[in-house]
């Protein structure tokens, strides 16, 4: 297996054992990007020179006999809605086409302290609004498992890069499933931590009360390591949890004996037959490994999407008001400031973004606030209470990540409502602030990956890691990446 096809923990060992150098590894990834990214199109910006310098620095450290940390020298990619100081951050929008942040997101500071190799910024749905990366203002990303298909979204670039071997690890963001769903579509591991576990400072806001940054990786081991690195209280983020961060790698044990798993009956409808089979098989496997599975009910599931699609656009309409051509971002000239702002926003925002801003402004407008936004906040309480109640009886909840596997590019994009309904299994966690992980659990008839979603109690990512790891190790999905050619030695 080529270097780019291996997970971070294997590469780390190889670096430590001096079987490879960091520069070799970086070059391998850069060559892979050259070879396949023309078709996958995961990257918006490749930071080649900086990457090689970072790799060289790590090699010098190794040469000096210093110990290196887990992520040192391991090449990864950053979703383009995370502010990287001095590196263009576009959110896949024309509005920020040339925007260079003068500051780093806290997550970037934490990651960079580990001396990884940053390969570049990856594609997404514009301002994270979408489930397929087709809403990128630049180009869609293609699923490495079938280039005619979407990689999912909005962290489609992150998932596709990890699946294609053009990044060993990536970070993305999840507001309504944007890490988990593309992870599922691309056959990689993706986790949305508990709300507040990871700092949002520097994550370009979409829906402030729902957004979280999380890792996309080859396997659960890498995920646990990355989670260690990015988690933690940040004084710059008032919604950041002060709870201590455990060492998540301690949960990389194969043990689900006695683990109580809940299967919410409301989630086991409306999905493709292939998806249902793969997910149920995975649950049977967990049972065989010693877990106790029982049916539970999350009665307000059907209302969660509606609540989400009122809360998220409402917050987004406010968060995106700042893009007005005044002090940063693109500007389209106008006869006066109102004209300039209107022209700038109308020409530089894509259709889906404009649609959601309109929905959001409407939901908040005088006379409709109570019926829409406030009502949605109350439904949110009910959704959260459902989970709280369920978690009195079970330790984790399992479900499909998405109702289908990846579909063809263009097949859903003309029907926004149908697109929204894809989020039915992922959205409730964002509303409730709970952590969730998607691990590969099979393929559909056409060979497209299917993901199993495991949902945990607030701040119980350790249980999620343990459950996901146990399941993963009983299968072989994590041993291969997408077959674009050239993966084997």
């Amino acid at each position: 297996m080529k270097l780019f096809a291996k997970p971070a923990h294997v590469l780390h060992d190889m670096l430590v054992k001096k079987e490879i150098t960091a520069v070799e590894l970086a070059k391998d990834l850069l060559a892979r990007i050259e070879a396949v990214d023309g078709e996958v199109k995961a990257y918006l910006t490749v930071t080649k020179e900086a990457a090689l310098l970072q790799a060289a620095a790590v090699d010098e450290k190794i040469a000096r006999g210093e110990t290196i940390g887990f992520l040192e020298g391991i090449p990864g990619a950053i979703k383009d809605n995370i502010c990287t100081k001095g590196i263009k951050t576009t959110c896949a929008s024309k509005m920020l086409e040339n925007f260079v942040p003068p500051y780093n997101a806290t997550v970037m500071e934490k990651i960079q302290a580990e001396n990884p190799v940053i390969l570049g910024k990856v594609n997404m749905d514009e301002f994270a609004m979408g489930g397929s990366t087709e809403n990128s203002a630049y180009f869609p990303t293609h699923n490495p498992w079938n280039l005619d298909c979407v990689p999912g979204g909005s962290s489609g670039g992150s998932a596709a890069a990890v699946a294609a071997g053009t990044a060993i690890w990536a970070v993305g963001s999840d507001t309504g499933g944007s890490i988990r769903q593309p992870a599922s579509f691309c056959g990689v591991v993706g986790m949305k931590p508990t709300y507040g576990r990871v700092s949002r400072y520097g994550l370009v806001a979409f829906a402030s009360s729902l957004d979280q940054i999380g890792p996309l990786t080859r396997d659960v081991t890498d995920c646990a390591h990355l989670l260690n690195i990015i988690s933690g209280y940040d004084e710059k983020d008032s919604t950041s949890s002060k709870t201590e961060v455990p060492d998540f790698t301690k949960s990389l044990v194969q043990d689900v004996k006695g683990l109580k798993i809940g299967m919410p009956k409301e989630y086991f409808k409306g999905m493709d037959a292939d998806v249902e089979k793969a997910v149920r098989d995975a649950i049977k496997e967990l049972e065989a490994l010693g877990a106790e599975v029982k049916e539970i009910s999350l009665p307000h599931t059907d209302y969660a999407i509606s609540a989400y699609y009122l809360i998220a656009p409402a917050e987004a309409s406010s968060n995106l008001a700042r893009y007005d051509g005044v002090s940063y971002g693109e500007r389209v000239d106008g006869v006066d400031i109102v004209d300039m702002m209107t022209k700038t926003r109308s020409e530089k925002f894509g259709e889906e973004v404009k649609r959601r801003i309109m929905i959001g402004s409407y939901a908040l407008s005088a006379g409709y606030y109570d019926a829409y936004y406030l009502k949605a906040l109350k439904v949110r309480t009910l959704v959260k209470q459902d989970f709280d109640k369920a978690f009195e009886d079970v330790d984790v909840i399992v479900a499909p990540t998405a109702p289908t596997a990846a579909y063809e590019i263009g097949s859903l994009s003309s029907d926004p409502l149908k697109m929204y309904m894809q989020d039915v299994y992922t959205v409730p966690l964002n509303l409730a602030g709970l952590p969730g992980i998607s691990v590969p659990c099979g393929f559909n008839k056409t060979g497209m990956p299917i993901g199993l979603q495991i949902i945990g109690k607030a701040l119980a990512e350790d249980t999620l890691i343990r459950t996901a790891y146990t399941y993963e190790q009983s299968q072989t999905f994590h041993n291969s990446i997408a077959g674009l050619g050239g993966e084997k030695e």
Partner: protein
Amino acid sequence: MSYEAVIGLEVHSELKTNTKIFCGCATSFGAEQNTHVCPVCLGLPGVLPVINKRVVEFAIKAGLALNCTINKFSKFDRKNYYYPDLPKNFQTSQYDLPIAEYGYVDIDVDGKTKRIRITRIHMEEDAGKLVHSGNTIKDSASSNVDYNRTGVPLIEIVSEPDISSAAEAKAYMEKIKSVLEYIDVSNCKMEEGNLRADVNVSLRPTGTIPLGTKAEMKNINSFKAIEGAIEYEIERQEEILEDGGHIVQETRTWDDAKGITLSMRTKEAAHDYRYLPEPDLVPIITTDEEIEAYQKNLPELPDARKERLMADCGLSSYDAAILTASRQTAEYFDAVVSSGADAKLAANWIMGDLSKNLNAEGKLITQSPVSAENLAKMIALINKGTISSKIAKTVFEEMWASGDEPEKIVKEKGLVQITDTKAIEEIVDAVIAANPKPVEDYKGGNEKSIGFLVGQVMKQSKGKANPGVVNELLKGKLQ
């Protein structure tokens, strides 16, 4: 038909914290444009606010000092509207759960005390400054934005429409300013924009209850302008109503140069602020114990201080009010009295010569060249009879010019009052001899003529003769 004015004021006061409300940028006035900014107050993509603890403390103190109830559960909300001085195109403010509500201040106008109720006090962030390329916003092809001021913490104090005249509005503003200075939460320098007022004016037929349509004047930043704008508005609205017309609800601006209010050509786009709870900030919970502690630690407030001065020093309500209007003046007065000076004399000198000189040179009492101790010493000299009140005026001017102690000045200038009866008697005799007519007039029954003679004696003695003694001697000799 007679009309009465119904006026409400929304006062914005900048809080004198070191840093802005949501970030660590300095709040100091007068910095070069865009040098006190950071990603947070610039509203860059991805930034998040964090509340400055001291802003909340100051806001609670202000609430208590203005007799409000503190809301133990309070939160921030977003007020969404587009304007170039607002980087995020929303202002983080407070909507339905402000930090304080239901307070009041008492004002004195024409000897009558009136209570003006305060509806609410809330915290919010200030916006940036716009510099227009032309003279006014209307004739500018472009404008320049300075974000130094964005994020400076403000409290907005909203009054009930209990104010009925320009004079009451002025008194209200002065009381608010005074209270905020006393508790040291604001510099209250209107000329630096620390204190601004939006004024709402409407009229209704005298004695009726329903409110008339109001006109709003925004961002008035001097006491004079507040009075002028109100007086003008009342007249303007009265004229319209008398003519049978209707008042248009609108925002007007005060043109200081012309002394009139003008309608602002606003687009009819409604101000739908689409408030939502600020998702990036968590609620503020204040306990009863904390509120009690704040209350206990409040300094003596203007009204209480005034009562104390009246009770302890026997000052009139009028004098006490003037002396306690500003905390610095009150402290100066206290310092003079505690150095041993007679309270009434201290009051007179501070309100008289000291104020006159301070005003003439645009100085604050904290910048007075005449220290409180020295003023007290001078008053002691008057009481002892070392100098007369008249000579004291000269001594005062000298102290002002040199900052010297009064004893030194009196000695150097030889201003010690002459009380030696013999010495005065000599001058008195000389004056009587030199002024036969006035002497005759006085003897003839004209009481006033003695004044002239006293004056002459004072003149001859270069003002140093003790006027009381002079009077006695003259009267005695002219029996």
